[in-house]
């Protein structure tokens, strides 16, 4: 069942279109910044973007920060909203359930499929933006303090705290970032699957996910919502930036991962509770 769902996902043109668009946005930004030399001033714009002109190897982090707030959630909403509602809208769901496949197993396969989509999306953005970053901005610069001239070199980038992150360390941190952001987006995926069990319209399910994102992001800065702020799905999205500090600060990442896991459990459980007793008519 899982293999079937993965194959189905990989055969869909819209999935590849989503990945292509996700990779294209950072590439466009890289081209514009490289051509004009106008990076945002420090403290403004997406995280890391002000530093990419001095070292193209940091561009994957800037690219992830660029796609994280809007584009990544939209693509996850589209794909997750289609999981069950898409089958229902084409009249395939009841035939799918006629096969000797439990509803829970089918839902789990859908979740794995969405997880594969989000992980591949984050990985594709990371890899393509690394290549684009190197091509547009090159490797690091040289010291200007009058000391020995030194180039950051292949695979090494300065951390937010100053010390250089060596290649193996950078790879580890990047993998952790991909995993963490994959988990954050899987939360939206699980919510999308839940909405997808509530309706026969993939569009409605996707809009439901986006409504959750917008609501969460709106409540986040609100002082009156301070009591629930830590439980909002978007509250910990930027915690991955702590992975690029020195020493690494795991506190926010750990907490964020726990919150995302909680959301995934609850949303997937709600989807299961709804679909297991649902009257499937289409």
């Amino acid at each position, binding site marked *: 069942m899982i293999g079937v769902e993965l194959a189905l996902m990989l055969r869909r043109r819209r999935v590849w279109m989503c990945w292509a668009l996700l990779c294209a946005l950072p590439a466009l930004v890289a081209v514009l910044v490289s051509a004009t030399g106008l990076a945002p001033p420090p403290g403004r714009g997406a995280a890391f973007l002000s530093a990419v002109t001095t070292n193209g190897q940091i561009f994957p982090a800037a690219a992830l920060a660029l796609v994280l707030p809007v584009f990544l959630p939209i693509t996850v909403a589209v794909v997750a909203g289609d999981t069950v509602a898409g089958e229902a809208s084409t009249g395939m769901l009841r035939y799918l359930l006629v096969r000797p496949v439990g509803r829970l197993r089918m839902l789990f396969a859908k979740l794995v499929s969405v997880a594969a989509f989000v992980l591949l999306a984050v990985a594709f953005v990371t890899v393509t933006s690394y290549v684009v970053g190197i091509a547009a901005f090159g490797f690091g610069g040289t010291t*200007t*303090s009058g000391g020995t001239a030194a180039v950051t070199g292949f695979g090494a980038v300065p951390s937010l705290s*100053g010390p250089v992150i060596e290649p193996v360390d950078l790879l580890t941190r990047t993998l952790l970032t991909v995993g963490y952001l994959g988990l954050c987006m899987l939360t939206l995926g699980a919510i999308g699957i839940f909405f997808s069990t509530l309706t026969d319209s993939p569009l409605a399910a996707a809009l439901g996910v986006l409504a959750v994102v917008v609501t969460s992001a709106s409540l986040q800065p609100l002082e009156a919502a301070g009591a629930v702020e830590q439980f909002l799905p978007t509250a910990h999205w930027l915690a991955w930036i702590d992975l690029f500090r020195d020493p690494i600060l795991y506190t926010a990442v750990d907490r964020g991962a*726990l919150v995302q896991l909680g959301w995934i459990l609850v949303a997937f*459980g709600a989807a299961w509770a709804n679909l297991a007793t649902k009257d499937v008519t289409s």
Partner: protein
Amino acid sequence: MVVPRGAAARGEPPGPGCGTVERVPPPRRFGRRALLVGAGAAALVAAGTAEGWLPATPTAGAAEPTPEQLRDAVLSGVVPHTGLAESTGGLGLPDIPRLESASALLSTTTRIRVQVAARDRWRIDQLTPAGEIDTYRLGDTEYLWDYGGNRLTTIRGTAPVRLPRASDLAPSDLARRLLGITATEAVSALPPRRIAGYAVPGIRVVPADPAGTVGRIDVWALPGPAGTPALPMAVEIAAKGAAGPVLSTAFTSVEAAPPSGLALRPDVPPGAESVSARPGDLAGVLRGLGAPPPPDSLAGRARVELPGSDEGALPGIGVYGTGVSRFVLVPAGRDVARQIIGGAGAAGGVPIAGFAPDRAVRVATPLLGLVVVRRRGGGFLLAGTVVPDVLEAAATELVPGVRR
């Protein structure tokens, strides 16, 4: 779903004319699965908020100190520690040209990473989603790493008066400063509070000065074994008459262990700039150059002797008052003073009696008062934790010919 009704539903053979079925919506009810998911969600929320509702229990092995003992323990030394703190300021300061970062620090939420090995060996980082600004202290030298500026600044010596920065809001440092300057005030006990997983006893200082704006200072500190320093974990400052704190800072996680030595050594990455600078000059920031020496007293309050002030390190700057009821006089350039006066209207600024409206303004927040005056040859700024009347009286004394 196709639901048989009538005889078919009861399992009886259909009678004549009963061969039709009808579609009806299924009954909607909360099933066991939904209840299970709801209970699971509630359990997860309960686990996530356990820090807030679990009863505070006394620290194992530590005797309950009296408030005076706890204050002495805080002032007796520095406990090596590493942790993450969050400070929240609600001072509502207006945008002051050249002082935006200081205003923001006291009016927003700031994430602070603290790594302290000793009183003169520490590192405190201001963490932002776009980077970080790290302050290192090694002996008598300070280093400032600014990721956004891609620059490491080496500063030799310290300025006795400077703009506030994130390292000042670390709970341990702020608590020691405040308890140090209020050491003669009475102190009382507060109920223990759960902070970063520890049940921490607290103390309260209520400054006695009627002209001060600070209503209370609450400090929670984790006592160590007898005779060792206590580690301040949280600080709250409230204005007089206010129910809630105007400025608060607390650790969200902390470990009473020294940081790695490597973490306390600043590093200049390739491509970054490395510069040296003198300790920050407050008057220079406001372009108040060439100012006369500050008077020995203002508004009936004596000037505080500051280290380095005799050698001209603080041109025109004076600090007046005692305890936490103090104010500072800083010379400002005419243009800077004009900018502040012009922008103060939006922040609730009001004219000062005896001055033309475009010459002086007063902005009063619950905790911090601010008076800016523009005059021939330059202006000045008075700011402090005293009632506005004191600042206005000081301004009147500084400008000859003005009567209130």
